[in-house]
């Protein structure tokens, strides 16, 4: 379980997040939507523990947290296999050989067999992101944090990575926070969504997608996505500059 209770966070005296409260049960997926700069990534950093909140509490009982960033963030001087095995090195249970074997199995599951010794510069953008997904899942995370990982990818690649992610979630159910700009993505992957608006960012809407993911058809996805889009469009953009009036 992950719980945010009345969390606020400021940077250089500017309040970014104000009074953020939500609860994420195990194996559930929560999407966070909102304009750029509203503080969505800050929520992920607070959940990962790489940032501390100013006030309020972030409680988590997850032992292992996986993170998929917008960019793959692979070490350029390490092979795909070494990049995935790296996050297992702190393990007190697995031997070095076990770590490599587990990393290799994860790469195979993501269709990267034969590319394990390639350096990131030798892989395509989609392959690099698959290595990043393998790295996040190899630790068998209780909580997975995803920060717009499909931004900038072409539609076909995005759809195939989303399908891969759905299969991984079905294989190993994991609580997940999914930050995205795309309401369709949110409905496709999440069980619920929260929308952040304003400056500082506050939660202004919460929507539960009652239908299980596997039963959602195109009509349901479009209908729910429209609902989210309407809320997003009707919220004033906190960063829009006021044009001077003559």
């Amino acid at each position: 379980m992950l719980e945010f209770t009345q969390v606020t966070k400021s940077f250089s005296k500017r309040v970014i997040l104000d009074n953020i409260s939500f609860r994420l049960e195990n194996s559930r997926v929560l999407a966070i939507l909102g304009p750029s700069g509203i503080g969505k990534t800050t929520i992920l950093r607070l959940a990962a523990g790489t940032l501390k909140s100013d006030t309020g509490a972030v409680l988590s009982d997850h032992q292992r947290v996986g993170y998929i960033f917008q960019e793959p963030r692979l070490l350029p001087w390490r092979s795909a296999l070494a990049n995935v095995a790296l996050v297992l090195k702190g393990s007190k249970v697995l031997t070095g050989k076990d770590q490599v074997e587990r990393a290799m199995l994860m790469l195979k599951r993501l269709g990267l067999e034969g590319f394990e010794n390639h350096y990131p510069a030798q892989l395509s953008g989609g392959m690099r992101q698959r290595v990043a997904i393998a790295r996040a899942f190899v630790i068998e995370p209780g909580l997975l944090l995803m920060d717009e990982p499909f931004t900038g990818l072409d539609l076909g690649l995005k759809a195939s990575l989303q399908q891969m992610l759905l299969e991984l979630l079905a294989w190993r159910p994991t609580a997940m926070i999914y930050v995205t700009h795309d309401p369709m993505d949110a409905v496709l992957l999440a069980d619920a969504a929260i929308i952040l608006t304003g400056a500082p960012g506050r939660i202004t809407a919460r929507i539960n997608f009652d239908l299980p993911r596997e039963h959602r058809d195109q009509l349901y996805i479009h209908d729910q996505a429209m609902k989210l889009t309407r809320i997003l469009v009707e919220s004033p953009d906190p960063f829009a500059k006021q044009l001077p009036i003559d």
Partner: protein
Amino acid sequence: MSNLTKLTRVSLWLWSTLGVLSLVAVWQWMSHLYSPVFVPSPRETIVAMVGLLRAPENRTHVYSSFYRILLSLTIMSVTSIALGVMSGFNPWIQQLLKPLKDILLAIPPVALSLLVIFIFGVGTVQTVTIAVMLAFPLLYGAVLSAVRSVDRDMLEMLRAFEVGKTLQLREAYLPAVLSAVMPSMVLAAGLTVRLMIMAEIIVGMGTGIGHALSLARVHMATDDIFAWMIVMIVAVLTIEGGLLYLVKKYLLTWQAGR
């Protein structure tokens, strides 16, 4: 370089060979203009060089200089990297070392050498100290800025996956710093060789290439001076070339395809 076609590589090699031949041609022409006492011809220089290297005492000079150069390079690399990394992590240490770095960069090499001789006298330790102090700021500055410019996003990723501090140093800092610092390391190595010879001359060592150059100057043996200069050029190019080879071998393995 690996992406260049064979034809381009051959053409580049031909142009640099032409550059060397042009310099030799100018040298030959100068030797006709001036007396051999001032400018010996390339042929006379080669003969002098073979003669020099055959003499056992001259081989001792070469070994002495190389021993000092190696010692200076080791001490300079270790101190620059250690202090550069510490300064990169801790701005207080950086501020503490800033005046020393600025002074060493500003002070003329000869002035520092004379100061060291006046205070500490003559010896290997003194020549090594001079070379280390003068080459230190170059590598130290490069290490410092390399540590500062390590990819913050990458570090955030390692922290998010709870990768320990030691592993962060080994997996993120060390390769990033090494790849950023290696070109400066090559420059610093070449600089150390030149500074060492200068220090040997100024300190007045009893052995070393610097000492041999001083003797040649006293005896007006310009062919010997030219011969020693060629030995030094070969030494610098060998050390720089060797280091550059290692740099390229290391960087090209993971930068291929970029």
